[in-house]
């Protein structure tokens, strides 16, 4: 049962890889935690305290012929973590922050039981959003490539068990905007989140914080 929640937490972790992740995961692209070539990007991402964007999530399952498609709004807050608010099908919001995972629906908030592995995955996710490569390097082998303003990251868990349950995480971006996230366990079992350009970078209002993030 715990693993179920672990997988849930991991599967919902946003940052992800590009279509050619396999090519990226090579020694030539292994990033050092303090690689100076990425510091400007890291600083730019960290400077964004609030981002709102639309997203489309494609879920591929090995037992389904076509992907399941979901759409919604993603909100990233420097202080409150990540919020995925699903609009189609409507009704659920997933929050991942320093305190773990929270699923919010009309019937209330649900917090999965604590799990060290889920906690590690959630923490990793938050570090990705903050572009904290040094901390990420503790858990993942981090690969990266930049082409102009475009960039790609791939995270491969160092722990075999986490690698089995999480697979590889790939993230694509353009400048300070994250454009694509993929959680890939296999070609038939993966989750792809396509993030549209930000609709707002204004600070979240108190109402938005209350609706889309965990109460302090």
């Amino acid at each position, binding site marked *: 049962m715990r693993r179920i929640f672990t997988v849930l937490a991991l599967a919902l972790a946003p940052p992800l890889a590009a279509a050619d992740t396999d090519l990226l995961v090579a020694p030539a692209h292994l990033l050092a935690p303090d690689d100076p070539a990425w510091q400007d990007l890291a600083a730019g991402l960290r400077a964004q305290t609030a981002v709102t964007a639309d997203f489309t999530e494609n879920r591929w399952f090995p*037992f389904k012929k076509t992907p399941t498609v979901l759409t919604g709004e993603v909100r990233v807050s420097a202080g409150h973590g990540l919020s995925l608010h699903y609009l189609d099908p409507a009704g659920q919001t997933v929050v991942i922050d320093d305190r773990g995972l929270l699923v919010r629906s009309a019937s209330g908030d649900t917090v999965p039981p604590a799990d060290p592995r889920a906690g590690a995955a959630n923490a990793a996710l938050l570090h990705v959003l903050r572009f904290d490569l040094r901390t990420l390097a503790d858990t993942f082998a981090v690969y990266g490539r930049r082409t102009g303003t475009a960039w790609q990251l791939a995270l491969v868990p160092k722990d075999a068990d986490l690698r089995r349950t999480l697979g590889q995480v790939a993230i694509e971006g353009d400048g300070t905007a994250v454009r694509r996230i993929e959680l890939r366990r296999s070609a038939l079992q993966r989750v792809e989140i396509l993030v549209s350009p930000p609709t707002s970078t204004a600070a979240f209002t108190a109402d938005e914080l209350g609706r889309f993030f965990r109460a302090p």
Partner: protein
Amino acid sequence: MTLLCRRWFVASLLGAAVLSGAAWLAHLDFPRKISTDVLDLLPAGERSPELALVRTLASDAEARVMLFILTDATGAPAPAGAARLFAAELARRPAFEAALAIDDPAPREALARALFDRRFTLLFPRWLHEREAAHAAGGGDPAHFSAWLAADTAAGLGRFLAQPEALAFQDVIPSDPLLLMPGLVRRLKGGLDLLGPDADASASDAPTRVWARIAVSPLSEEGQAPVFAAIAQAAAATRAAYPGFAAADTGVNRFAAASKARIQHELSWLNALSLAAVLAVALVFIRGAHRALHLVPPVLVATLGAWVGVTAAFSRVHILVFVIGAMLTGVAVDYGFYLYMQAPAHPGEDYWAKVRRLKKPLLSSCFTTVAGFCLLLLSELPLIRQLGLFVGAGLVCALGAAVVYFSLLGNTWLEARPLPAALVPPAGVRRGTRRLLVVLWLAALPGLFLLKWKDDIRELEIPSPALQREDARIRGLFGDRTDRTVYLTYGATPGEARAALARLDVWLAAAGGPHTESVNFGAVVPTAEESASAARFVHDRPDFPARLRTALDAAGFDAAGFGPFFEAYAQYAAHAAGDTLDDTVRELHARLTGPVSLLLHPGPPMAWFVTLAGGAPSAPPPPETQTVSASQLQSLNRIFGEYRRSALRLSLVGLAIVGGGVFLTYGLKDGARIFAIPCGACLGLFGLFGWLGQPLNLFHLLGAYLGVCLTHNYSIFSATSAYRREPPPVSVRLSALCTTASFGALALSGIPVVHALGETVASMVLAALLVIEFEHFAPLAGKP
């Protein structure tokens, strides 16, 4: 027989009796014989099955749980590794049956695996029942249920995959397209919070917790010192790897050990203080202080006899009997006073002639009191029976020992000091005081209507504020919620208990408000009917797998991807039987570990399910639910209240018998005057308690019972003297003062019930003495 031979014979007789008693006590296994278990105060042969249930639960499961909060050198929560190491260290010691770190996912994963492995026998029947209900609600034709079910299942799976939690289940869905496991999580969702504060366990400041169950009862010796030693060893072993590691714990055994230590301490000092108080009174009122020490041997023999009697008659004796039994000292010394302080009828009167002369009041006094205490043997409460025998046997021994012992003395008359004239009030003052007492008594009587009873079994324990604070702190960190109601639903078998649980769920839904939520194993275990219905379905509807394959393909799924499900379904269908529920529940229970294992007990002798409910109805569940609102405390308190009422009835019967004897012996008018002493003292004191608003319990009642027996004797002795135009016998004054002193010592006890007993008896006896001293019996003078 010469005087010397007679003395040798008597001394040998007394010595043989004492040696026999001492030998009996020496051969006893006291740790097994003497109980400190509060539950042993309740009868083993239950009047109600709920008591058996609560006792079993308390002794066998819940009471054996110990909770630990672990910290590091800075006082911050210890790391998870320390918790797992500490739990492993505990678990490998014989004193512990199990131990696990609460935040360790392994046990819950094991439970999930166990449920997944048994999803068809456990979860499928409930799922099928719900789908049948949905089909019927939609007006579906039963003949087409199989086709409808297949299409509905495929559609439901499609909807589920769009939910956030679908990704968590993607590995199990090929084996579970019916969504049995997600359905279970959904059913438990509302109640998970009731199990504890797991929600915040991932926070950096979340406490590090370990749950453990000890191997034996926490109320036994083996469940205390060896367990505490094992904890210390485990903590030391963990500290070697994690310097500064510390473990705070709580458990019933901590309270039991503290209570036992305090009771043993009280046992020592209360008896000593009581004896000292009696001797102090004797020394004040008796000439030749050293000769007053002759009053001690009969009391010691009485105590010995009481111990022998109660340990011979009962397989286990509660330690409180010996604490409360300290009252025996005050009563047992009465016979010594009466016998030893009676002046010879003439110079040189033979001792045995004196005994014959006094045998009537001695025997009537002794056997009236003994009879009163023997009536307690009819009680259903073990403590009261044991107390009745303890005091009854002690009094018989006290009388026998006093008669025999004083025959060994050369001078068998202990002369009292005369009261200084200054201390004897003039007649007018006595008359005025007597009237004042009557006025006070009349003023106290309305207080009887203000009496409040408080039947709280916790009053049997010595309060341990520090332990209680620590217990509340640790249990709070484990998520103990005061707004949570615990129900126990029982039955002879798991199936019977599960059927009752279904009725409880229906009642909770109907009687509870919109905020009522509950969690129990009803979410996991089907009813026998659901189980049988599922078995019939798989036998009667062999077309369902094929229909489901078709429906899955039609809904965009690859039916071949669900091979594990169809294989498992076929195996279930081949062996499904409707009568295996009890075995399935037992198998499931064997796989449960940690706190969740307490939610289910498959028996024998009884099976039960625990339900945790938030916002539960205030009314108790109806009888057909076979459920007790199992705050154990509430149950025990209610049952204790029943026994208090039972004891009250018994006391009133005894009082009627005693009163009847008085009226028959002394006639209506004089009998009323004599009987007014015990009855008046009792009613007046309880009236005073009523005015003071002091809540009373069973032990106030017992104290009043004893007080009535004692003051009844004083009343008769004093009336007898009054008929002879003599003042009340000095032995009555001494006896009453000794009793007041010894019970006053009991009133100093830290145990609320002992305190209640002491203050009641001391107050009643003192009140009776005042009335007697102020010539209540003067109007009897000169009567035949």
